[in-house]
């Protein structure tokens, strides 16, 4: 199912949670809403679910206007951050809930419901725990029960709010992979909210990066990582070093010295050079290179991480060697940099 968010705004008192946000999710897509807290990502998700309603703008499912439709009539599956399982019901009753509340003529027979629950328990790999209560399950198990409960109603759309937020790292990693497989197998359209960029980049087909109620960039994980559209995206996704520079007549100046980088049609004036640790090449302090003073060096995965300073600004560079001496002067050249106008 496709979702269209068209120019949606929402205020809570004085706080603008969403400001003229537009977005489209294609059928079968796995979309991540990524941003810091207060960026409006959860509000946007709740608006798609029908748990919050926009002050202006429209929400469309497959072209049909759903803006004012309450959650109960949207045929969605929603997984809450803290699972929101019904504590007084068994796991099986929790999963069956969405089927048992249907109007009599749409409600499956008791035996069919039981079969469906058993099927879902198999799917979430907890076939023998149907009789337990949520309090008797681990965090990861509860999460999967919440997912099974959401899937029981055969939703057209699966929405997940920080689905792995409350889990420890190992469980999180396993569940992530499992969720992605499930999404592909069931052919769902899914939207999930996260503040963890690693999670968003690993899971999603496309990532929507939000900040202060607006969308900063929408793109594939590769696009947002390699071609950040704004300084915020560059800073928020992955590690980024930032150096203040000046753009003058097609050249990039650092303390009056021209650097060997292209300013890409940027207007004259103060600007900011963004580069990732692996995008810098360590070399001599020659003209055209960014001069640095080398600090500590330590091993990090397959490469060395060099901590250095440009004036008073700390930068980090990855290199496979040769390693410079501590305190030595060196220079950085770049394969690829982003230059943004200074704010």
């Amino acid at each position, binding site marked *: 199912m496709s979702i269209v968010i068209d120019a949606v705004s929402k205020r809570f008192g004085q706080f603008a949670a969403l400001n003229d946000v537009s977005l489209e999710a294609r059928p079968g897509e796995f979309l991540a809403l990524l941003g810091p807290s207060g960026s409006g990502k959860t509000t946007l998700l709740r608006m798609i*679910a*029908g*748990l919050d309603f926009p002050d202006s703008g429209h929400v469309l499912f497959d072209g049909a206007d759903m803006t004012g439709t*309450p*959650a*109960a*009539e*949207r*045929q*969605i*599956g*929603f997984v*809450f*951050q*803290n699972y*929101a*399982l*019904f*504590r*007084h019901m068994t796991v099986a009753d929790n999963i069956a*809930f*969405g089927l048992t*509340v*249907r109007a009599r003529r749409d409600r499956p027979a008791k035996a069919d419901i039981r079969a469906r629950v058993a099927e879902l328990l198999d799917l979430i790999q907890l076939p023998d725990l149907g009789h337990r*209560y949520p*309090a*008797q399950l681990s965090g990861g198990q509860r999460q999967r029960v919440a997912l099974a*409960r*959401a899937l*029981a*109603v055969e939703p057209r759309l699966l929405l997940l709010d920080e689905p792995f937020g409350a889990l420890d790292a190992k469980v999180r990693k396993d569940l992530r992979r499992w969720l992605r497989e499930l999404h592909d197998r069931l052919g769902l359209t899914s939207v999930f909210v996260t503040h963890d960029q690693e999670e968003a980049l690993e899971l999603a087909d496309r990532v929507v990066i939000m900040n202060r109620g607006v969308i900063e960039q929408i793109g594939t994980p590769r696009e947002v990582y390699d071609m950040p559209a704004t300084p915020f995206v560059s800073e928020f996704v992955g590690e980024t070093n930032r150096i203040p520079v000046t753009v003058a007549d097609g050249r990039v100046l650092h303390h009056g010295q021209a650097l060997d980088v292209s300013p890409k049609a940027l207007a004259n004036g103060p600007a900011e050079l963004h580069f990732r640790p692996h995008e810098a090449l360590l070399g001599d302090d020659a003209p055209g290179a960014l001069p640095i003073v080398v600090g500590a060096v330590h091993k990090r995965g397959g490469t060395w991480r060099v901590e250095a300073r440009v004036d008073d600004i700390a930068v980090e560079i990855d290199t496979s060697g040769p390693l410079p001496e501590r305190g030595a002067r060196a220079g950085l050249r770049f394969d690829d940099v982003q230059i943004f106008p200074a704010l």
Partner: protein
Amino acid sequence: MGLTIVWLCLIVLIPLSTIFLRAAGLGWDGFVAVGLSARALSAYKLSFGTALLAASVNAVFGLLIAWILARYEFPGKKFVDAAVDLPFALPTAVAGIALVSLYAENGWIGSLLAPLGIRVAYTPLGVVVALIFIGLPFIVRSVQPVLADLGADVEEAAATLGATRWQTFSRVILPAIAPALLTGFALAFARGVGEYGSVIFIAGNMPYKSEIAPLLIVTQLEQFDYPGATAIACVMLVASFSMLLLVNLLQAWRAKRSAK
């Protein structure tokens, strides 16, 4: 453990046991003659009946107030929250006098109801009104923290699964708060049965009609009929205790059936 029992004996059990001892002085026939006389029986009926009715009314409206306090933000909320406890804090006689001046035929509310043929003051209805006033905080204060703890996300989860508001209430919220509601109900009921100060002003205290059991005890005491007073007290004690026991058993049964 030992300390708990000693304390419980000292504060609760020994004083109560003297009631039985004094009542025993009457002998069985004398006990029945006073404790189960027609006047006493109608007083029990009034006391337990009105307390039950008032606790039931409170269960509904107290739940509503607890709900609003737990779920909504509005100006003056702190004030409303504090006002709920007033029936706890107010001397009961003050409450009684306030209620009478409101519900008497020349009072604000009484004068509105009188043309409709509804008399509140000096009737059993007045007793119910007084007990509703007294019992309200018990329900609100038992249910409110549980509702707050339950969280709005459970309601939202039910909504996303297609439940109507009524289904959400009856199948998700009510079962979750039932133990707290039942506890509040039992407390309000127990308080209602024993309530004296606020009721006697509004009840009219006519024997066989609007005379509550605690008043009957006081009447006996004023006539220096101590054994008679204790006989009535005895009957009330047994009745109250069995009802509270019933509620507790119900709770235990529920707890066993759901979360193990």
